[in-house]
């Protein structure tokens, strides 16, 4: 028995995919929000979650450059110590204003935001009911919480209701955790039904908008806005590393207690705060996202086209069109082969294998960008078409 025995499964996995790129791909040069040189190959980036394509926006780049010059490369400390700069506070104020909430907390990563709130909001004696397909950051967080953790079947409000009913008098101490758009299959949570159940049982609701902020809702606030249930969402969490093109995360709420939760969330307290350049570019892209609603329209146009075409080609895709377009196969070797073929054709997608996928299947996952041109979307479709020949 060795300390390292438990890692043997990864050695087996490494051997299975030996010599293959998907888990060791190195981006050598980023040419644009949608193109790069990866391991010497020019590729269209079709798996970067860069939904609005703002990573090279001149205003955001200039803001980051100015921030480095004015405030240095890093804060060198946590928010609770020396790492709260005036710009962190401004971003929190701007997020609260954008979401129409009482306050906001800015985290250093999206993982820290989701994991930290999942670990902190409920504690021993409370209950967390989470969607079975929740992101790893949610699972990691709830495990730390000490609350009783109960899963409900993915996107199944009736299953959620059944499990709430079983709690009897504990339902008021219950936090329901769901996502707006699920990251692997791109399906949208039935938030109107979930919010109605939450009201019936007097529970709390947290919605992770990582893949839906900037993507859904007239104002881009996410799936809760699109479903008209923002008043029912006690907590909205999300990330800056997708639609806003930087890195970091947030939690917004109308509960006054959010300012107390700040003092209890270890992933906020015990890590260095985001660097000035990150905060500056995030503030800029948050504004640009609001000023350019056409980006969301273009994103959905691209997403619906890719989803429809891959479905027409006979691929098994997710249950609905969204900017996450995933092709499913049960055969890991075939998935790896397909990934290699797409890469050779200049298309970079995400290869997702268990346990990262929601079940025992594999995914070739695309995330569409508003910045993809019609020609690039066509190139992605054409590459997938060769897999069927």
């Amino acid at each position, binding site marked *: 028995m060795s300390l390292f025995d438990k890692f043997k499964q990864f050695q087996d996995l490494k051997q299975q995919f030996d010599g293959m790129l998907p888990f060791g791909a190195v981006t050598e040069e980023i040419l644009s929000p949608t193109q790069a040189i990866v391991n010497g190959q020019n590729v269209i980036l079709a798996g970067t979650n860069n939904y609005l394509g703002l990573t090279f926006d001149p205003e955001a780049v200039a803001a980051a450059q100015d921030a480095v010059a004015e405030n240095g490369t890093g804060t060198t400390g946590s928010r609770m110590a020396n790492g709260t700069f005036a710009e962190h506070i401004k971003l929190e104020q701007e997020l609260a204003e954008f979401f129409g909430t009482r306050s906001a907390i800015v985290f250093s990563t999206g993982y820290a935001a989701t994991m930290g709130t999942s670990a902190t909001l409920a504690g021993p004696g409370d*209950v967390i009911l989470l969607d*079975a397909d929740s992101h790893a950051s949610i699972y990691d967080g709830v495990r730390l919480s000490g609350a*009783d*953790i*109960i*899963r409900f*079947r993915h996107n199944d409000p009736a299953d959620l209701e059944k499990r709430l009913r*079983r709690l009897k008098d504990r339902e008021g101490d219950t936090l329901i955790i769901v996502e707006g758009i699920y990251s692997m299959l791109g399906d949208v949570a039935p938030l109107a039904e979930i919010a109605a159940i939450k009201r019936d049982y007097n529970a709390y609701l947290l919605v992770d908008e990582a893949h839906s902020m900037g993507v859904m809702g007239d104002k881009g606030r996410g799936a809760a806005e699109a479903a008209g249930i923002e008043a029912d969402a006690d907590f909205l969490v999300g990330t800056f590393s997708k639609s806003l093109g930087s890195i970091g995360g947030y939690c917004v709420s109308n509960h006054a207690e959010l300012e107390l939760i700040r003092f209890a969330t270890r992933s906020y307290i015990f890590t260095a705060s985001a660097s000035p350049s990150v905060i500056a570019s995030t503030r800029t892209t948050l504004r640009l996202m609001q000023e350019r609603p056409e980006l969301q329209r273009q994103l959905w146009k691209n997403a619906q086209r890719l989803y429809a075409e891959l479905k027409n080609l006979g691929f098994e895709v997710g249950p609905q069109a969204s900017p996450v377009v995933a092709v499913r196969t049960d055969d890991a070797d075939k998935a790896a082969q397909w990934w290699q073929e797409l890469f050779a054709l200049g298309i970079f997608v995400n290869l997702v294998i*268990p*346990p990262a996928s929601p079940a025992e299947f594999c995914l070739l996952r695309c995330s569409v960008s508003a910045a993809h041109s019609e020609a690039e979307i066509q190139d992605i479709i054409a590459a997938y078409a060769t897999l069927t020949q």
Partner: protein
Amino acid sequence: MAPNEPAETWKPNDLNTDYDQVLPKIITIVTTFVKDDLSVSQDTGLQADIRMASLQVMELVLEVEDEFDISFPLNRLPDIHTVRDLAQEVVVAVNQ
């Protein structure tokens, strides 16, 4: 009654539910997760014998919760190694 024979009179939330009534149901559910011809008994290890991944164990919990109309928090899983462990925990939950 033999362990593998379901009790015809058993009902969910029966306060007298005991291990011998729960076990056959658990074995039936666990068997649906077995990919080979392994015969499941109370001594069968969920990971050691059936090689269930953590995701499969969580799916098993969903099925067990519905079969017995109980809440079975995932926090209890670290102590569940065998079918017997699972059945014993279910007995506790059913009688709560």
